[in-house]
């Protein structure tokens, strides 16, 4: 018990008597923790955003309008929306295709509303006013969401299987066109995969670089005191007797450095991020790690790395 206090006292004495190397270590730890503290939530929300983009890609199945007799009109023909019973039937068929997650019907009226809203958002009320009232030219459609982006092709094939002549034929005469977004989907899929990889590599490198930086700074501060270690060995100190004060010193450096960094992070969060939250989707993307748990993780990592850095570096000088 008395030993523990002795080691703590010794560690604090070293901090007090040679503050310069410890100060360098603290600054390094603080910078590293700051980078990690910014990086972790950014990575999380970036990853989440790419997932959202992937989720939004789907198939659009456009329906033909029907004439008074209920027959589908050719492309460009403006008539009535198909009767609800037929729409319902087609929706069930689409729903039954494997890998289809959801099917959402957009009626002619809804399509018109969406278009007007979009135009209004772009301050083009003049165009909205000119939209024809009685004869709505916009087709009804289904939004088909796959469970995964990579299954888009197979779903499309299921909607328009090859017919007798080998050409793709729709499963229902009502289907006028299937929006060919496969190219877009491929591009988005490739881009999101690339973004994930880049983020993973960048964060991995940053993590390694920062750990090495911390370990190296501690190494230097111990190297400056290798003669001291030599003397301790000469008077018969055991390795752990020499090591503990250095570990205590490392722990304190880690704690103080992480504390400083978390202070800055909190400042940045309240002053910069929080006011912008409502304007930027990226920042306000819900389930990133909470600030408290982020702080705890960072402090623990910083302390462990600095203490272990001290312990491992000493090994070189403790060899008998």
């Amino acid at each position, binding site marked *: 018990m008395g030993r523990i206090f002795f080691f703590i006292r010794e560690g604090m004495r*070293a901090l007090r008597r040679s503050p310069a190397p410890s100060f360098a270590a603290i600054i390094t730890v603080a910078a590293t923790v700051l980078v990690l503290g910014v990086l972790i939530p950014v990575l999380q929300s970036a990853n989440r955003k790419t997932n959202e983009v992937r989720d939004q890609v789907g198939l659009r199945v456009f329906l033909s309008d029907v004439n008074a007799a209920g027959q589908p009109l050719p492309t460009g023909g403006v008539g009535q929306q198909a009767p609800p019973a037929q729409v319902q039937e087609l929706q069930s068929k689409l729903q039954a295709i494997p890998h289809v997650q959801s099917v959402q019907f957009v009626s002619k009226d809804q399509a018109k509303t969406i278009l007007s809203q979009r135009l209004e958002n772009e301050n083009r009320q003049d165009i909205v006013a000119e939209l024809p009232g009685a004869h709505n030219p916009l087709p009804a459609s289904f939004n088909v969401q796959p469970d995964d982006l990579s299954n888009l092709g197979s779903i499309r094939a299921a909607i328009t299987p090859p017919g007798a002549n080998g050409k793709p034929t729709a499963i229902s005469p009502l289907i006028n066109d299937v929006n060919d977004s496969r190219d877009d989907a491929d591009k988005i899929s490739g881009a999101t995969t690339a973004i994930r990889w880049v983020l993973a590599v960048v964060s991995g490198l940053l993590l390694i670089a920062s750990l090495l930086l911390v370990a190296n700074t501690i190494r230097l501060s111990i190297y400056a005191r290798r003669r001291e270690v030599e003397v*301790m*060995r*000469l*008077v*018969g100190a*055991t390795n752990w*007797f020499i090591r503990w004060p250095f570990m205590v010193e490392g722990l304190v450096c880690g704690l103080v450095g992480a504390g400083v960094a978390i202070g800055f992070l909190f400042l940045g969060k309240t002053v910069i991020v929080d006011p912008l939250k409502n304007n930027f989707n990226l920042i306000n993307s819900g389930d990133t790690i909470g600030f408290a748990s982020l702080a705890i993780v960072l402090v623990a990592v910083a302390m462990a790395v600095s203490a272990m850095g001290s312990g491992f570096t000493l090994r070189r000088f403790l060899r*008998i």
Partner: protein
Amino acid sequence: MARRQTSEALRTRARGTRRPDHVTEQRPRPPIVELRRVTKIYPGGHVGLEHVSLRVDRGEFVFLVGPTGCGKTTLIKTLLRELQPTEGEVLIAGRDIGSLSAKKVPQLRRRIGTVFQDYKLLPNRTVYDNVAYALQVIGASRSEIRKKVPDALRLVGLADKVKNYPDQLSGGEQQRLSVARAFVNHPPLLLADEPTGNLDPNTSVGVMQVLYRINRTGTTVVVVTHDREMVDKMRRRVIALDAGRVVRDQAAGTYTPDDESTREFARRVREEMGIDDERPAY
């Protein structure tokens, strides 16, 4: 406490008449240092020591001399097990230290006091704390430290500098501090590697005086030195090394009175060296 009594007893024994013969006959204790055909060849083929055999008995004061590179420091390092000999055995108090496990090495070093030419003090500790550290290392209690450290500092004449830091001391004072640290837990053996190498003759006498005083408490002292003049004046056993071999081993002094006090010793050596400075060396 027990140790203190022992050294006290040894001191009176040294001052008084000879110890009764039957004591030595009853318990033949092994020599404190014994080397049996020790050879040390460094990586690269340089020969540090070659078939060195010697023994140093308890209470002896031995000089180890020879030109630079003759293996003196190698010998000291093998005694501390900083180096393992390539061949042969090194025995401290009858125990082969080559067979010690790495964990036991610190225990060995606690039983051997060491003094070096470059003092090897802890720069960020006061005089008092430097000496106390040697006791803290062996897990001594606070009260023990409070008692022994002032004793050791008084022995070397640094009692009034306890709060100074090493860089505020002169070379001679630093070396005496290093002697105090080596002696504070009363080791049976004290090794001094060129203790006066950085010091002027008068200061050297002060350091040797302290080593002499320590020897008279019963501690075996081995001093490595280039200072042949000092060796000749001291009239103690001299072991000379050359190119890793023992070339001379003789009890050099023809006559040294047993009851010579440290002051008398210092005066005699100063006279013989032609220093007629009467003030104490520290």
